[in-house]
């Protein structure tokens, strides 16, 4: 029996752990777990006033701080029956678009692309692919600027509060964003073309793909929870079908639906809402013969690139059709109750749920991040992929590289705070 342990294969601190055991060229164990320290956010907010919650939960993740802020505000407002104005809804969507653009551009260009162009990272890639890196930085920059102008900061936005906004982007801000977004449109389309041209491995799993579905647009902050297997429920009912399980090898919980894994993220969103894409996006996708819904997780890269174009266009449309003025915050009449909210964070549906007492203090909190919900499915995908590669007699070193690609296609955000990945490889 030979025991092979690969520590820190990514040369970063390993907070997630993949344990693989192979016997006679057959995979007998594959465990993917997060080993990060527990962060107690759900406990930290208990006892806090309703208007402090967003500020605290935003800190769950720097990458998805807008998503956590929006979901937190939505859940809080639902608990108190606060109906925000149309302008507030639009500004919240615009801010979320900024986050989506920067997150997808960063993920696609700096995590995914080097894998397919044969570079260890984006830094050596940059010398040879300057045009692509410039494009990526410009897209990230416009995403950052949208969040900054709408939220007051690039991360952990401060202008959005329960009941509305404490400041809104000026006419000059909007004109600037609009002009930059129009310049970025071709860059987004070039991104879609680029990611359609890459050759992806084929590994298909028939997993339930869950996303929000707002009917007339791609999902962001609202919509029923739907799946490719017939699920169609309100966000209030999320806890009726999702269970959280604990495994001894992971401090992060595993979410399952009726005992089975499911998939969240761009692949599910695009699959469940494909008809809402504009014709020009569909044309590019069809030109490269991609079909959505897709069961291949690697096609999530194409789905993200398509979303990049879609949301950039939506931001242009918002800015062309709206002028913003500072409005009075909607009055909050505090009462005991519970609010549940679901939004689409870049990596999939994010749930926040709070119960309040009659003074508006939190008595209970439940937060389910997309990566926690995707963890079980990710483990199954890795399992299936390793089996496929073992059948093809692929060498261990290459298998690990391919697993890395798969994990990157999933675009995990390990409990929104950690690094990835340590692989323990046990071969008998």
């Amino acid at each position, binding site marked *: 029996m030979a025991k092979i342990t690969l520590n820190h294969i990514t040369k*970063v601190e390993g907070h997630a752990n993949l344990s693989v055991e192979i016997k006679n060229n057959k995979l007998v164990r594959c465990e993917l777990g997060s080993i990060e320290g527990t962060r107690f956010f759900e406990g930290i907010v208990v006892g806090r006033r309703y208007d402090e919650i967003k500020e605290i939960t935003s800190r769950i993740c720097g990458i998805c701080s807008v998503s956590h802020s929006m979901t937190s505000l939505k859940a809080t407002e639902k608990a108190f029956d606060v109906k925000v104005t149309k302008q507030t809804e639009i500004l919240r969507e615009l801010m979320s678009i900024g986050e989506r653009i920067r997150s997808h551009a960063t993920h696609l260009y700096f995590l995914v692309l080097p894998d397919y162009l044969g570079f260890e990272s984006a830094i050596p890639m940059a010398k040879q692919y300057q045009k692509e*890196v410039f494009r990526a930085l410009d897209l990230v920059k416009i995403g950052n600027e949208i969040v900054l102008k709408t939220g007051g900061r*690039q991360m952990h936005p401060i202008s959005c509060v329960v009941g509305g906004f404490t400041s809104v982007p000026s006419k000059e801000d909007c004109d600037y964003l609009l002009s930059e977004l129009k310049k970025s449109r071709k860059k987004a389309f070039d991104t879609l073309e680029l990611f359609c041209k890459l050759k992806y491995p084929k590994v298909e799993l028939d997993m339930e793909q869950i996303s929000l579905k707002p009917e007339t647009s791609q999902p962001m902050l609202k919509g029923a929870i739907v799946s490719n297997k017939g699920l169609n429920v309100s966000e209030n009912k999320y806890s009726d079908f999702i269970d959280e399980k604990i495994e001894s090898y992971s401090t992060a919980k595993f979410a399952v639906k009726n005992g089975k894994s499911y998939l969240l993220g761009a692949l599910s969103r695009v699959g469940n809402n494909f008809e809402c894409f504009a014709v020009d996006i569909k044309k590019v996708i069809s030109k490269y013969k991609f079909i959505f819904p897709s069961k291949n997780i690697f096609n999530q890269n194409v789905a993200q690139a398509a979303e990049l174009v879609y949301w950039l266009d939506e931001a242009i449309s918002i800015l062309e059709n709206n002028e913003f003025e500072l409005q009075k915050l909607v009055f909050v009449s505090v009462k005991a109750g519970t609010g549940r909210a679901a939004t689409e964070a870049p990596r999939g549906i994010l749930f926040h749920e709070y119960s309040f007492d009659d003074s508006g203090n939190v008595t209970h909190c439940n937060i389910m991040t997309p990566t926690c919900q995707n963890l079980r499915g990710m483990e199954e995908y890795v399992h299936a992929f390793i089996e496929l590669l073992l059948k093809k007699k692929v060498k261990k070193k290459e298998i690990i590289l391919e697993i890395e690609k798969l994990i990157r296609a999933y675009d995990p955000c390990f409990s929104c705070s950690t*690094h990835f990945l340590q692989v323990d490889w046990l071969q008998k």
Partner: protein
Amino acid sequence: MKTKKVLCFGNPFIPIDSLAIEIGKELKLKGFEFVICVSPQEIIQHTNFSFILDVCENIKKVSLIGIKDLKANTLFTLHDFDLNFFLQLMKSIGRIDEVKIIAIPINYDKQKAKEEIAKILQRKNL
């Protein structure tokens, strides 16, 4: 005299990572503008900066270092992107030249750091 921009990075809520930001807010030096940055990505927004101020492990006094002195990480999730990544990337594509990084030891005395930083910034040959 043209004002030189000093980008100050850190996390204001984490004591061991907040010193550069605190100093950036407090230090007043003629000819220098201190810009507070709380996310590594903010560097994309700036091209015409002269210095970076940040805290650094494994040094004993305020030191002037270059990009080449930084150790690169391999990236796996969006949380792995650090200032070093964006500096290396922007240098690779020629968006910035060699950057002078003023590194402050973790948990260093703030007053002492301010004096040493001022001394470095006011060197004539920089």
